[in-house]
């Protein structure tokens, strides 16, 4: 029947490449995750609007009105929301990817399948939640008078790719560690909380430049999330304003640096994942 096939060692796949071969399974896992997430829920998918809407309202009132950031940053609502969608995509993807292996313990323990499927599916699910928010953002920015150029649109795409890549890489790493030490998921929640403030989502990058010493500002810009948030500002906010705001220098360069770092993180995450993967089944 299979005389041609070679003897292969079971359970040693090609990692993320195997995920590409099993897109049908990936799609079903994503559908399952979405279904399970909203079981017994009246609002269902609408929850993915409620959370960012609340977040937006709280920040807008506290930061924009009370702390008067709205006076300094033109169209602060659009500015704020274009950062919020980025960090939500990152936070949800990274957080769920970290928990994905443990959540799918019954499968991991009993059937061999490329385990990278689970973190990838988590990123996929968070992308499904991201797109409705993007639509809301688009509506808002169009109302504010959005006239983007092709380059500005491309910046948005790059920002999205950076975030998805970074979340996947970190999620692979943290997801593998989480199997052994459940501390990882709490640690990840902490990182996501800090990340919201460690990138120019609520305030402008100029405030950071004017406050931090030069080298620390460089570190700040090395953060791929900072790059992605600024690219999103450049895509969704800047073209809706009078175009007088100062965008960070070398925006594209930092964007590609951020992408490079994110890709490196994927390689790191994948190699750590593969090293630990052999012991997943017995540890869960």
């Amino acid at each position, binding site marked *: *029947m299979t005389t041609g096939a070679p*003897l292969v060692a079971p*359970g040693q796949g090609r990692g993320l490449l195997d995920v590409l071969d099993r897109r049908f399974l990936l799609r*079903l896992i994503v559908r399952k995750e979405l279904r*399970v997430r909203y079981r017994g829920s009246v609002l269902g998918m609408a929850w993915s609007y409620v959370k960012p809407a609340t977040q937006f309202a709280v920040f807008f009132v506290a930061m924009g009105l009370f702390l008067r950031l709205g006076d300094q940053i033109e169209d602060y609502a659009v500015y704020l929301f274009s950062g919020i969608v980025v960090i939500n995509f990152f936070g949800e993807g990274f957080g769920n990817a970290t928990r994905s292996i443990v959540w799918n313990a019954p499968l991991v*323990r009993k059937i*061999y*399948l490329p385990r990278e499927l689970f973190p990838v599916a988590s990123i996929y699910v968070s992308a499904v939640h991201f797109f409705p928010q993007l639509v809301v953002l688009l509506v808002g920015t169009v109302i504010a008078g959005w006239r983007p150029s092709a380059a500005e649109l491309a910046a948005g795409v790059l920002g999205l790719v950076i975030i998805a890549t970074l979340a996947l890489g970190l999620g692979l790493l943290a997801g593998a560690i989480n199997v052994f030490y459940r501390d990882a998921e709490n640690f990840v929640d902490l990182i996501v909380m800090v990340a919201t403030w460690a990138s120019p989502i609520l305030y402008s990058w100029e405030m950071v430049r004017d406050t931090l010493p030069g080298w620390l500002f460089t570190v700040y810009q090395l953060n791929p999330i900072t790059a992605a948030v600024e690219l999103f500002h450049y895509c969704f906010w800047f073209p809706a304003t009078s175009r007088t705001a100062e965008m960070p220098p070398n925006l594209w360069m930092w964007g590609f640096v951020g992408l490079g770092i994110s890709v490196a993180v994927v390689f790191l995450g994948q190699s750590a994942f593969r090293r630990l993967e052999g012991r997943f089944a017995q540890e869960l």
Partner: protein
Amino acid sequence: MTTSIEISHVQKRFTLRHNRSLKELAVALVRGKDLSDTFLALDDVSLTVQEGETVALLGFNGSGKSTLLKLISGVLQPDSGTIGTRGRVAGLIEVGAGFHPDLTGRENVLLNGAILGMSEKQVQQRFDDIVAFSEIEKFIDTEVKFYSSGMFLRLAFAVAVHSDPEVFLIDEILAVGDEPFQRKCLDRVRQLRDEGRTLVIVSHDLDMVADLCDRGVLLEKGVVIADGESHSVVEKMRQG
């Protein structure tokens, strides 16, 4: 003859780590107590299975049968030694492992088919056969959590036997459903055997597996202590 499964000098040790919190680690450090407790599940196991062979893995609880099956399916990795398999392996380590209670029967069939390595087309082609085999047509669009355990197992088994693998690993799943359905499952397994597929079966129903399989392999505390014609190995096991 082609080799279907080749296991050589495989060893598998489990670490039973009881305590891992910071407090417990500190206490253990102070007392100089070793935290890890290990357990040798398989010790230098070598086994070659030819294509089309049907092998019963025998042994009492804790003898390492399920561990060996998990190693063959790739769920676990050996500490030392090598394992090779030829063709697609479907490991039924536990029936319904990939079933999710919040999905309907239909969705679970798709998901499980995909998990067991079927393509979208294959699942769709065999969908009706799967449902017919499980005899739960009426409930296929009901969420699985409302199924009785019998219905659940039937559907899970039906997906598995339709997944068309070259190597079939079966762990205690022939105890599925009522007697007529069990007979149906056994018929199906025999059919797979007659089609020349490689089967490795773990079961505590000794007479049944002895009849079903040509070869028996007896494990005791992780060591192969007998390997031969299934009935004689079962006899040996009974004698102790």
